[in-house]
């Protein structure tokens, strides 16, 4: 079953419900993701399903946009945003309606799981492709056990690392 928006709103009554900010495992995860991003000058950067902006605020890029379905999370994130980041409310499936610019870098972490997208990964490939510039970079990091996706782009790197009681698979693609 897809998790309802109400349930997610409820979850985000706590500003940091996943306890990212206190957990050294998540500090390490963030460091690994950031160091995997190829070093280019990125103009427009998008973080899809950014939660409270734990990773988003540290991303490279001139203008950073974070998209999150929970209004509470977006509000919290905007209150804690770095100057070049701002946060919008919307789901992955709202992307075509948000009139976003084309992106040089798209980051998607902890989102492509059955409770959020059910059976629509092939649609997700299309929605992200509509937004990513040719030559743009896509970075995905997910819990390996729950993640069943492979974007139709060139694989730049793929690494696995221990995370909480799971493993993360961290992928970098180039369109």
């Amino acid at each position, binding site marked *: *079953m*897809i998790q309802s928006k109400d349930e997610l709103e409820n979850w985000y009554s706590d500003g940091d419900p996943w306890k990212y900010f206190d957990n050294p495992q998540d500090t390490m995860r963030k460091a690994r993701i950031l160091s995997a991003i*190829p070093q*280019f000058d990125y103009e427009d950067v998008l973080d899809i399903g950014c939660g409270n902006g734990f990773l988003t605020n540290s991303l490279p890029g001139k203008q950073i946009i974070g998209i999150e379905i929970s209004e509470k999370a977006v509000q919290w994130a905007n209150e804690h945003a770095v100057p070049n980041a701002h946060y919008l409310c919307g789901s992955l*499936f*709202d992307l*075509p309606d948000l009139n976003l610019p084309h992106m040089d870098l798209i980051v998607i972490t902890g989102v492509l799981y059955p409770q959020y*997208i*059910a*059976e*629509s*990964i*092939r*649609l997700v*490939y*299309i*929605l992200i492709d*509509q937004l990513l510039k040719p*030559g743009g970079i896509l970075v995905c990091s997910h819990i*390996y*056990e729950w993640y*069943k*996706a*492979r*974007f*139709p*782009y*060139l*694989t*730049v790197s*793929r*690494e*696995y*690392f*221990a995370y909480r*009681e*799971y*493993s993360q*698979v961290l992928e970098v693609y*180039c369109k």
Partner: protein
Amino acid sequence: MILLYHKVYPEAKTIWWVTPDSFYLQMLDLKSKKVVYLDEYDPSDPNQCVITFDGVYSNLWKYAVPILQHFGYPFELFIVGSSIGQGNEFDTIEPYSSFADKETLSKMVAAGGRLQWHTWSHSVLLGEHSEEIYQRELVVPRDLLSLDPNGFKWFGFPHGRRDESLKAQVHKYFRGALACDDGDPLDVYDLQRTTVYENTRLSISTVSLIIPCYNYGHFVAEAIESALLQTYPPDEILFIDDASSDNSVEVAKRYEPKIRIEVNSRNLGVVENFKKAVSLTNGDYVCFLGADNRFRGDYIEKCKSVLDTYPEVAIAYTHFSLFGDRAAVVASAMSAKPHPKIPNIFLKEFPATPDVGIHKQNYIHGSSMYRRIAYEQAGGYYSSSLPEDHSLFSRIIENGWKARLVDNYILEYRQHSKDQINLLKSLEFENAYLRSLIYKYQSIDNPEQSLFEQNQQLIKQLQLLTQENSDIKKSNTWKAIQILSKFRSLLNLHNRSK
């Protein structure tokens, strides 16, 4: 063929719902056909197809329209006038779903949709009715007509129910009418539609993917996962191990039954192994993926589409990218160019229209997808002075078949040495696998004490193993191996440039 859909949503809640994943595959299967509007539809042409939706439900905008636009297909939307912008509470059996409002309908028209008429109230109109009722149900109100100046020429019978008196009325107002599965394929006022369900597949062909392996244990998992996570899944995946002495088969077995495994009792060598592999599969199209390489996510989709579309083409070949610690060395030897952005990845291009024949220059790599019928006609793989794939493809082309380029770098071709560096990646993956086992076994709640204890012991062993793996990676010896292997590749480069 006319397809009939109702709702598209990430979960298939009843038989009237199709998920975007299935919808995508169904749309992909239409690529070799001509998708048209009803206005252009010629029912006698088996190559034509129309996509229709009855309702029309608002979930199409988010979950179906981006896919239709991706393929550039036109589509027909049969709307019920009184339902626009409403919910489906009247339909007590179906889960809740809202109908598209006027704004969403307009957006769908702009995206390639055409509005058609499915009555005002979706009532069954059998027998004789007053002129007033026919007027209300069959005449499209002016405010709706303005939503689509090209639309409303076609009628959909509510619930597919119709009789001669209704058909006579429909004749007055519409260019034609559509029934459901019990309609007539050729009668323009009673056109048959095929209801599409979650499991419906419209493909005209099947694909066999073969992964031959000999001592590539380090890479096998990556190759298999790239085969399993294709945008278009192959109909069968055969992993054939040519008597490896390493852990190749052990790794492959983790993916059963999604893949089939064949283990040769003795090493057959490339030609015999390939022949055996093809004989063990059934797909109309065949392709090989080396156990040390990987397919980009759209490899099967792109190659299959070429063979589906061009019946005279027997081989779909592609460009490829080179990666791995020896990519730079190999790239200069085969004149592949560096990737414009990504270091240590190289791109090898092949011509769409080669200057010289296949005998002089092999522009078709061994992972190219080919028709089984052409393979059999050519006598399959056999030993000759040419490499086995070059020889096969030359003979297929000599027989009059065409080869066609897929203009994408969708094969990722690993260039590796026997260095220990590969072990690092594979240990990393091995750790991920072991941790997933730990996670799985920890969550088994077993009432039997003895089993529980056995389970705990296994978990401990696994934890020790992952710890050992991590320790190896932290050790100075490990670091030294990595540095040495970098030296060696530098030395290789240096020697080549001399």
